[in-house]
């Protein structure tokens, strides 16, 4: 039965390999290129905004842009947009506990009397 499956797979892929033409089941490539352009645009925004005198908001904008870039990479490049719930939970778990670490650490240092 597995030999049968293998034979099927071979006949299915052989024409594509011979002609080099894309088979119909290939997912579209444009989301990858579009995400790349968006990431480069966000990087330019990151760099440009750093030279504006915005005080503490420079840091807020920088980190905010980084979070948007990360969400783009994780949803499109790392396929979380079409992954199962268990995969998304595993992906978010690390960031959740990082938020606990940062929240408790900064909750201490930001509220200390100077």
């Amino acid at each position, binding site marked *: 039965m*597995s030999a049968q*499956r*293998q034979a099927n*797979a*071979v006949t*299915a*892929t*052989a024409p*594509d*390999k*011979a002609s*080099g033409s*894309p*088979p119909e*089941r*290939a*997912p579209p*490539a444009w989301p*990858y*290129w579009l*995400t*790349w352009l968006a*990431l*480069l645009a966000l*990087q330019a925004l*990151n*760099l440009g905004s*750093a*030279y504006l*005198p*915005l005080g503490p908001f*420079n840091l807020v904008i*920088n*980190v905010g*842009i*980084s979070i948007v*870039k*990360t969400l783009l*990479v*994780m949803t*499109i*490049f*790392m396929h979380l947009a079409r*992954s*199962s719930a*268990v*995969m998304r939970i*595993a*992906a978010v*778990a*690390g*960031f959740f*506990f*990082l938020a606990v*670490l*940062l929240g408790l*650490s*900064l909750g201490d*240092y*930001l509220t200390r009397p100077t």
Partner: protein
Amino acid sequence: MAADSTPAIVASHFSDADNQETAATLGMWIFLATEVLFFGVLFAGYAVTRLIHPEAFGNGGRHTDVLLGSINTAILLTSSLTMGLAVRASSVGWRRSSVTWLTLSAILGVAFLVIKGYEWYHESLEGLLPGPGFDYSGPDVPGVELFFFLYFTMTGAHAVHLSIGILVVASVAVLAARDKFSADYHTPVVLTGLYWHFIDVVWIFLYPLFYLVSRS
């Protein structure tokens, strides 16, 4: 050529190849969660140290090379594109396209390391490497030294990850060239892609925190 394509080898405790790939991918995501916390501790250290020495971080931040840092950021973002296209190509069994994109990703990774090494070399010549040779004059020298300690540690930890990533990508590219993957079986390419994109995410945060501090 197509007849040599490797069919999926499914272990007995998985119902089929998809089931097996899902389990492997979940394992990779759990590993990446531990990696988020590995780098997370360093980011928390950065946050607290910057709160205590805000001006020193501004002065230290103006000593990093913003041009080379920006070029390197663009290189890594582009390598994520090429890796994404490699995973896409391998998922439908395009051997040649997959090998090309994987090789390009590895080359971009090496280019990043070369530029990063050049930066480190120049910073160490300027006396910015923390330790007995640390040579910086200005206000709050210990704070600036802490900034550069975090800079070298965090970009260093990132570079170690990237070096491992390059070796893995090169190995997977060789396997792909030997026709070890097919539309049925390409899990190693998928997992390598996830690891590669994670390294990109770490750099996405390192870039503003070390290169874009107090530029205005």
